[in-house]
């Protein structure tokens, strides 16, 4: 029966999905433990940096406020808003990205939290959504430049 090949391919697909699920279970468990350790280390590092700056009398290079910057994404201009509060980058928000394909935008917009974590726009682009990522990074950079004292 031609059904034989449907069964073989179904079995093949199920095996692949099962392998992916197995991998997922292991990696989620590992990532959970990793993330707790990383969050702790980041917090300690941020606290040390703040302490250092206080001791040396260095203040943040940024003025508090909201700043917009725009840059070329894949299909047009990407406009991002950078929010500075207490001298640190508090938030990076999208304002407009009409030229970006939705799937690529969803992939790339996670970069905003990387920028806040790193307190810098010197972050990696998202694989597979390079142009959109670059648009976000450059737009945020332009915003940050306006925030400089």
């Amino acid at each position, binding site marked *: 029966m031609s059904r034989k090949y449907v069964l073989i391919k179904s079995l093949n697909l199920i095996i692949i999905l099962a392998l992916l699920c197995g991998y997922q279970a292991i*990696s989620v468990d590992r990532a959970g433990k990793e993330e707790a350790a990383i969050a702790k280390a980041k917090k300690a590092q941020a606290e040390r940096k703040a302490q250092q700056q206080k001791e040396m009398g260095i203040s943040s290079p940024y003025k508090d406020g909201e700043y917009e910057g725009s840059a070329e994404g894949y299909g047009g201009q990407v406009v991002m808003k950078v929010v500075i509060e207490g001298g640190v980058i508090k938030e990076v928000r999208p304002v407009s990205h009409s030229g970006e394909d939705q799937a690529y935008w969803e992939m790339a917009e996670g970069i905003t939290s990387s920028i806040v974590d790193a307190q810098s726009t010197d972050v990696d682009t998202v694989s597979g959504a390079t142009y959109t990522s670059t648009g976000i990074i450059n737009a945020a950079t332009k915003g940050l430049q306006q925030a400089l004292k």
Partner: protein
Amino acid sequence: MKNLKKQWIADIVIRGFFFIFFMTAWSSGFSGVKYLCEQIHTGRPLEFNAFVQVLGVLAIFTIIFGRYFCGKACAFGTYGDAVFWLAGKIAKALGKRHPGIPGDPEKKLKHIKYFVLIAICLMCIFGLSTLIIEYSPWTAFAGIRSGKLSLKTGGIIGLLLLAGCTAGMAVEKRFFCKFLCPFGAVFALLPVMPFSSVKRKKESCIEGCSACRNVCPANLDIPYVDEENEYSLKMGDCFQCGKCTQICPAKNTGCMTMPGGIKGIIADGIKGVILAAVLYALTMA
């Protein structure tokens, strides 16, 4: 055949629609495959992100309806058929026969796409995925359309590969799709539901006809109903274009989701609407 003509017109509408509005479906879906491999490389958990969602949706659609995506919605497939048609017109105008690859190239060459898929997956799993994006002919193709062509080495090589694929598509129907497309390899491995697998009845088949095989872009031998048929594995290469169902003089070829005749053309339209609605919900809403 009047039906073939009607289907040709319906095709232009459906394929033009997907070419204009859903050009990135191929690349975002296949990026899902690459993403899964890249995550395995870094040992990180797999997220059901936008790329993987497109991949999942296309895979489910293919399991239910067969490789309709390849046949009607893929921008590269439409590009290939347009190139082939144009080459045919040029050959005719020059008074020459449309050149082709001699013999039955499908038998051997069609397996190359599985090696392309495996190579790409391995490169991603071993952390070399940036090379792929740089050198991919698809990147060049999308770059030309969006005006974002990179002229670094990778971009030039991608352009050359694109030119090579274009030349192939000019002389052989669906050259890239049959022999090289890694996404096609993924689809060909999926278990298409029997009600979407094209078959013909042996008793109504006209002796010595082979119209279906001749019109098929993948040169497939349509399997007979209810027969232990070694060729049914090859139906993984069927991309639901429907030409066999429209050309059969005995109206003997088809399946439930692709019945031939006017019903078949309407079915094509309905499948297109379903696919477009699902892709729209994922990528634009």
